[in-house]
C-alpha cells in the first residue's frame, strides 16, 4: 500500500452526530457550507441574518442564512474471521484485510472520525475488538490484533451479532468478508445492520475464481469444514466453474442491492485509489 494516498470514504446518509468533523451533516447550523435560507421566525439566529435576501423579499420577511455543519461519524470495520479468510492465493486474504483496516484507521484519524474493529467467526470474537476510538496508536493496535489471531472459525454467522455492539447513532460499517457463507447468513447480517450505513467489501482472490488450470488433478480441501474433494480439471469443467462463480457473484450483488448496498470488491492487492473510488461511488 502507498503511504501517501489517503483512503476516501463517505457515509451514505448525512451523519447527525453534532460533533464537527469531515462529513456533511444532516443538521443545519451556523458554520460550514451554505445550505439554504430560513425565515427568522423559524430560525432565530441574529448573527446570520442575510440582509440582501431580506431586502429582496417583497413581503418583508427577514431571512437567515443556514449552513450545513460537517460532522464526524463512527466508522467500524466488521472483519470475517472464518477459516476461509485464511486462503492464500495470489495474496493472503487476511493480510489484505489487515491492510484495508490500517488504511481506514489512518483515513479515519485524518477525518477526525473514530474507528473501531469487530471480528467475528461463528460468534463475535471478544478478543478481536477495538471500540471506536481516535487514539493515535490505533494502527499499531490493529497490526497487533491481526498478528495475534488467525482466521480459524467454522462459519461467519457471528457477523450478524455485531449489531448488538453497534447500538446508538447511525454508523458507517464496512463488512470485510469473502461472503462465501450462504445467502441466508448474509441476509441476516444485512437485516441486523439495517440501521447503519453498511458497505460490503468483498475480499476476493483471482486464484480462486479466474486463475484456474486447464488440465490437472486437484485435491481440494475446504478450509472451514475440512472436507476433501478431488477435481479432475478440464476445459469443460473450468468453464462450468467460472460460470458458477459468475452466477454466485451476481446473486450476491442482487442480495446487496435489495438492501440498497452496493458491494465493493478488493482482490489480490490493495489499490487505495481504486478502493476510494468504489467507496465514493457506493
Amino acid at each position, binding site marked *: 500500500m502507498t503511504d501517501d494516498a489517503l483512503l476516501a470514504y463517505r457515509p451514505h446518509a448525512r451523519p447527525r452526530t453534532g460533533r464537527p468533523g469531515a462529513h456533511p451533516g444532516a443538521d443545519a447550523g451556523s458554520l460550514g457550507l451554505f445550505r439554504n435560507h430560513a425565515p427568522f421566525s423559524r430560525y432565530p439566529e441574529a448573527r446570520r441574518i442575510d440582509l440582501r435576501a431580506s431586502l429582496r423579499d417583497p413581503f418583508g420577511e427577514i431571512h437567515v442564512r443556514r449552513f450545513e455543519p460537517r460532522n464526524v461519524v463512527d466508522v467500524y470495520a466488521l472483519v470475517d474471521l472464518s*477459516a*476461509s*479468510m*485464511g*486462503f*492464500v*492465493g*495470489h495474496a493472503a486474504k487476511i493480510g489484505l484485510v489487515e491492510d484495508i483496516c490500517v488504511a481506514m484507521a489512518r483515513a479515519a484519524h485524518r477525518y477526525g472520525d473514530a474507528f473501531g474493529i469487530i471480528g467475528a467467526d461463528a460468534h463475535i*470474537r471478544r*478478543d*478481536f475488538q477495538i471500540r471506536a476510538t481516535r487514539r493515535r496508536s490505533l494502527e499499531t493496535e490493529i497490526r497487533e490484533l491481526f498478528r*495475534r*489471531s*488467525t482466521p*480459524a*472459525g*467454522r462459519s461467519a454467522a457471528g457477523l450478524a451479532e455485531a449489531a448488538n455492539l453497534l447500538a446508538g447513532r447511525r454508523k458507517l460499517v464496512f463488512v470485510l468478508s*469473502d461472503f*462465501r457463507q*450462504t445467502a441466508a447468513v448474509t441476509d441476516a447480517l444485512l437485516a441486523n445492520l439495517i440501521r447503519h450505513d453498511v458497505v460490503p467489501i468483498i475480499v476476493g482472490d483471482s*486464484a*480462486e475464481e479466474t486463475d*484456474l*488450470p486447464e*488440465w*490437472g*488433478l*486437484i*485435491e*481440494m*480441501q*475446504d*478450509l*472451514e*469444514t*475440512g*472436507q*476433501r*474433494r*478431488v*477435481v*479432475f*480439471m478440464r476445459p469443460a*469443467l473450468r468453464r*462450468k*466453474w467460472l460460470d*458458477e*462463480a459468475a452466477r*454466485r457473484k451476481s446473486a450476491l450483488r442482487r442480495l446487496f442491492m435489495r438492501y440498497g448496498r452496493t458491494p465493493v470488491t478488493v482482490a489480490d492487492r490493495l489499490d487505495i485509489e481504486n478502493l476510494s473510488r468504489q467507496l465514493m461511488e457506493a
Partner: protein
Amino acid sequence: MSLSFADPQLLWLTPLAALPLLGGVLRRSAFPSLASVPVDGLSRLISLALTFTAVATIGSTALALAGPRRGGELVEKIGDGAETALLIDRSGSMNETFAGRPPEGGEESKANAARRVLQDYVRRRQHDRFGVVGFSTSPIRMLPLTDKMDAVLGAVAAIDRPGLDYTDIGRGLATALSLLSEDAGQSSRVLLLVSDGAAVIDPKVQQTLRTTFARTRVNLYWLFLRTANSTGISDTPKPGEDTPQAMPERHLDIFFKSLKIPYKAFEVENPGAVEAAVAEIGRLETHPIVYRERLPTEDLTGFFAALALLSSLALVAAKIFEAGLFTSSLPLGLPEAARPSRRRAA
C-alpha cells in the same frame, strides 16, 4: 481353495492399506469453500478410483511380502481300481533268465520280463494308486502310494537293475503292508508280490504279519517267477523233506492260504505266462477307490507384486497429472479448521 503365507507375521502390515482412506493421495490445495466447486461425476469417479488404487497398492504390497500361496490342501479323488503295493524281489537271481543263467543275446531276464509286464499293467490302470517296495536282504520303500504315473513307471523301470543277495520276504511283506495301511480309505487294496523264490519267515514275524494282514484287509497276489528245475509251489514233497527250509515256496503258499484273505498265486515259468498272470490280476481288481491327495501349491507372490506394481504406476501417473492450483496448501495432517483456535483458548 485355501490361502497360506510364507511369512504370516508380515500380514500385520496390511492395515496400512487403510491409510489412503485417512490421508488422501494427492497434494491438498486449501480452498475457501467447496460449495462453489461444481459437482462433477467424472471427478468423483476418479477420486474413488484413486483411493481404491492407493489401498490396492499398499494392500497388495503387504500381501506380496507375506508370500501368499494357494493350494497344498488334501482333496479326495475317486479312481477306478485299487491301491496296489508292488512288492518286488530284488535278489540277484531275478537278473537271470527263466532258465537260471545270465541272459545272453536276445534272452530276457526275469526282472526284465517283470518290469515290462508291470509297466504295461501300470499304464493300463491310470486310476490306480501304486506303491513300490523292493526287497532283498532288507526292504526298500521306493515309492509311497501315489497316482503319479511317471513316478510309478520310473520306480518299476528300476527293478531290473542288478540285484542284491538274499530274499528276506517277511520284512518285505511288512513294509508293503505298512505302505497300504497308511491310507485308511475305503478302497480295495492289493499286494502284488513278485519274486522268483521264497524264504523262510521267522515264526515271530509270521505272527506279526498275520495280525497286520487281518487288520489291513488286502488282496494278495503272488507272481512266482519259477526258475526251471527249482522247487515250486505245487511240488509234492518227498517224504521227510517237507520243511520250510527245504521247500520255502510251498510253505509260503501254505502260510498265505492260512491267512484267510483273498489270495491267489501265479506260478509262471516263461515271460508269456507272466503277461497272462498280470492280465488276470487286472481283471480281478477293478473297484472304485477314494483317495486323498495333496494339491500342488501355487505361489501367488508374483500376482500380488504385479498388482502392486500396476497400481503404483497408476498412482505415479496421477501424481504426474496432479496440478498445483494454488500456492497455499496445508501441510500433511489435520485440516486447518480442525485445529483449535489458539486465541479462543487463551
